[in-house]
């Protein structure tokens, strides 16, 4: 993320993902009936939207972290439930062009890398926060 171009590209996809999921949990996007969201996603999403109004960066960071964690821990991304998994559905939908054709596999892989980056970031940060909260070191 030190490279500006990479940061821009990753954050663009991250912002699209977050916005899409926010609009799903607030039911402003209802066109994709398969996509389900958990109560946790709805709560954290509302909290994040509220934090945007507060203009407090700390609140926003925490709320975003909670929301992303909720999105990626929505459920296990198994074969049977793939398309109820919001992040995965976003990834698929995001890979379609304006013409309705699917982007080449290389594009899908790039989007996958960017989406999963935020998933890993959210999960790892949650683990780190829990470790700090419990004051438990990794290597005691």
């Amino acid at each position: 993320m030190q490279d500006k171009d990479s940061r821009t590209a990753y954050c663009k996809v991250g912002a699209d993902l977050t916005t899409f999921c926010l609009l799903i949990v607030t039911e402003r996007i209802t066109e994709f009936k398969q996509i389900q969201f958990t109560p946790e996603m709805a709560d954290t999403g509302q909290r994040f939207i509220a934090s945007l109004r507060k203009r407090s960066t700390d609140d926003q960071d925490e709320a975003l972290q909670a929301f992303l964690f909720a999105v990626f821990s929505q459920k296990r991304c198994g074969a049977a439930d793939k398309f109820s998994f919001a992040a995965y559905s976003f990834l698929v939908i995001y890979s379609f062009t304006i013409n309705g054709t699917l982007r080449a596999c290389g594009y899908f892989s790039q989007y996958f890398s960017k989406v999963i980056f935020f998933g890993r970031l959210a999960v790892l940060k949650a683990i780190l926060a829990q470790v700090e909260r419990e004051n438990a070191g990794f290597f005691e």
Partner: protein
Amino acid sequence: MNDQDLVDSNDGSDVAMGEGAGGVDGLDPNSDDAAMSGVGNDNDAAISGVGNDNDAEMSDIGNDDDDDDDGSGTYFPGEGGLADDDSSEEEGGSESEDLQKAEWTEEMVQTAEMAKLGICINTVAKVIVCLACSSVLRPSEFSQHLSSIHKPISSTPSFFEQLVETYGLRENLSSRPGAIITAIYGLNMFPGFLTCDDCGYACRTVNRITTHLSKSRGCETFSEKRLVQTFQPTSDRMYFGVEPHPVADELNDPFDPFPHLKIKHAPPSFADIPITSPKSARDANNFLRSEPWLALVDGKKGRDIYDLVRERDPDLRQEVRICVERYAMTAGKALEDAGHEAGAAMADYVG
């Protein structure tokens, strides 16, 4: 891009010459169907094929320099034509008026049989246009022209004799309309000429146009920027001024016929077609087939999907993006630091 493959395969250019399918057999110019709905349509009529010019043609034009006429007279393409400028002025006067009364709008005809041969007929100018060559040829030459230049396309001389009889096509191409006309569809247009605003006479030098204006009745002014066409493709060319069709002006490129043909004949954009599951296994790769992706987007239009995931609520997206950028930076830094600490702890533990 690969994702454009499907789009490209349905590009409107593929059907550029397919308009003939809309025509009908037979040569009856009075038939409703005989007036070709594609090439012969007024909307397309002004599209000329200058864009297809090759260098040889252009250099050839440059060498021609209108040596075939002295710039006098108002010429008229009456049957029997005129090669003699002096005689043309008197003869051409009344005929030219008749022709102008007939309205020099585009009256293009292309039957299905003509479409197969790549030709169309301007029923007012009474000429056959070879669309591939963007030029006019005498009816008597066309059979030979097709078999030699456009092989394996061919037709019999009797077919062209029938055309001559039906449409009264001219054999003499050394002539001019006698007015500024709307460009003849399919015929090359050339820039760089001086044209008489009244009779359409065109030449390359100021001396010639001045001579023409002084000798011709009713001719007073000339234009420097008007495009010209000629019936005669090789020697004895007589250029005349034309006005590109208004449709061509709207597209800002009167030389390129393809935008017009695309607009007219292109299938609807994929963006406006609901997504459906592929009918054939050849339309989707293994990855797509093994994944039920299409169930997610079935029936939705590409444009709608694009708007939903990329354009929906841009204000919210902008605010979110600021947060995401900050989050990515701080979280990344925190994890990096944690990684260092873990690495150091691991080193101590191992050590």
